[in-house]
Every structure is written in structure tokens, then in C-alpha cells.
């Protein structure tokens, strides 16, 4: 219920959306734990609401759900500390997807220059696979996971597949990253639930 009264987020120090250091404020030495958590929530709300305002203007209805889900995960990653491996893994996926999109657009442009008439969209564009949030990037998947460390329980393997970037982590790092990822996921779910409640009452 308090989520509906989300206080205005602080203005980020750098308006450049690609800067991931804006979440570093939450790790300032002077911050207490509560203050750090509040700052992170404000940053999370800022990133997600800004993405929502852009989606509203630019995105056709059929693609909106997918775009909102991607905005949710990239907002989580941007609001998190840049030292977190799961955050860097998610942002790496965002950049990889963006570069693939740009390459496809460049291919279409080249084709249009060669042919006088406008060319139809390449068939490969339809077959693009969505990278799920819990799925590791292609580069990480190419590397075989490290052999199970001493004392690592069998269930840790499933956890590695769910936490972004988990494939390459030591067991102890995996546990730390999982805890931080869980906190961010819960905060994101609370934020989105609050927005749904807010919009539903109009």
C-alpha cells in the first residue's frame, strides 16, 4: 500500500541513461543500511518510471508487455551497485541485444541501397529469441561451468541458471549474488504492483 505513495526519486547525478554508476550512491560509506535501501528503491523507481514513459509514447501495443518486462530487469540492474555481478550480466545482455538490433537494421539499410525497391524484412528478424532474465548470456554459456566445488550442494546448479551471470561464479559468490538479486527482484515486484494498483483506481 505504501508503494502507491512512492516519494519522488532523487535527481540522478548524470542524466546519461547508459551510465550504470548512478546506483553507486547506495554504497556510500556514510550511508546506513536503511538509507542505502531507500536510495536504491528511489533509483529503481526512477529508472523504471522513465522507461515506462518512453514505452507509452513509442511502443505498439503488441510489443508492450515484452518491452515492459525488459525495462523492469534493466531498471533493476541500473539501480543496483555496479560491483554486483548479476547487475553487470543483465546490462551485458541488454547491450548484446541492442547491438544485434542495430546490426539487423544496418543489414536492412544495405539491402535497400542495393535494390531499388524497398526490401522486405529479413526472415531472420522473426526468429529472434528473447533472452529470459534468468538466462545467462551466450558468451557465458559457451564457457563450461566450473566443476562443483567441495561442499557445494547439488541444487546450486539450478540456482546458477536462475541468477544472471551465475554460471561462472564461485559457490560463495553465488550465494552473495543470489541474496542481492532476491532483494532487487522483490523491490521491483513491489514497485510494479504499486503502479498497477495506482492505475487501476482511475
Amino acid at each position, binding site marked *: 500500500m505504501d508503494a502507491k505513495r*512512492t516519494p*519522488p*526519486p532523487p*535527481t540522478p547525478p548524470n542524466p546519461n541513461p547508459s551510465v550504470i554508476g548512478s546506483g553507486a550512491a547506495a554504497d556510500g560509506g556514510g550511508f546506513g543500511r536503511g538509507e542505502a535501501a531507500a536510495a536504491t528503491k528511489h533509483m529503481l*523507481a*526512477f529508472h523504471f*518510471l*522513465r522507461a*515506462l*514513459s518512453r*514505452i*507509452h509514447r513509442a511502443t505498439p*501495443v503488441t510489443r*508492450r*508487455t*515484452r518491452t*515492459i*518486462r525488459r525495462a*523492469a*530487469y534493466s531498471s533493476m540492474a541500473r539501480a543496483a551497485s555496479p560491483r554486483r*555481478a548479476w547487475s553487470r550480466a543483465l546490462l551485458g545482455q541488454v547491450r548484446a541485444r541492442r547491438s544485434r538490433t542495430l546490426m539487423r537494421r544496418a543489414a536492412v539499410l544495405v539491402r535497400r541501397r542495393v535494390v531499388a525497391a524497398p526490401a522486405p524484412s529479413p526472415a531472420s528478424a522473426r526468429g529472434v529469441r528473447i533472452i*529470459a*532474465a*534468468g538466462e545467462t548470456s551466450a558468451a557465458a554459456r559457451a564457457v563450461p561451468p566450473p566443476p562443483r566445488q567441495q*561442499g557445494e*550442494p*547439488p*541444487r*546450486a546448479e*539450478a*540456482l546458477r541458471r*536462475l*541468477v544472471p551471470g551465475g554460471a561462472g*561464479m*564461485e*559457490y*560463495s*559468490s553465488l*550465494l*552473495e549474488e*543470489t*541474496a542481492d*538479486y*532476491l*532483494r532487487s*527482484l*522483490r523491490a*521491483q*515486484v513491489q514497485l*510494479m*504492483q504499486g*503502479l*498497477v494498483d*495506482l*492505475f*487501476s483506481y*482511475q
Partner: protein
Amino acid sequence: MSSRRSSRGSISEEEINELISKLQSLLPNSRRRGSSQASTTKLLKETCNYIKSLHREVDDLSDRLSDLMATMDHNSPGAEIIRSILRS
């Protein structure tokens, strides 16, 4: 991160148990259990299930937000609230 870990020597059993306890406190309906291998496996299973359920909630809420935005007028109070938050 790996090099930093290895330079400190192998991580101790005590530190692993500390991380397990921290993870346990984040799970819903978490109960205090022993630190045996079997209970750790069960804890990790619950953690996996919890992450999956949160992923599903993000999917469901994305769907609902998409529907709500489709019906939202550009001048509605919700849109105005978003703009005022972004302006501050």
C-alpha cells in the same frame, strides 16, 4: 572477484553458513533449521522456487501494466503523476 577470493585462501565453512543464513532470512515463511548438507540443499531448492515465482510475477505485472497503459489517457492522473515524479 575470483582472484580476490583465491588470494584470501579458501573460504571458511563459517562464512558459507553465514551466507546461507542471510539467504534464508530473505525467503518467505523461513524457519530456523540446522546447517546440515540436506537442509542446505532444501534451502537452495526453496530459493530457486522463490526466484521463479518472482520472475512469474514480473511477467504477470508487465502484462497488467501493458493493458492499463493501453487504456490510459495521456492526460489521466496516472500519467500526470509519472511526469511529475520524473520532473522532480
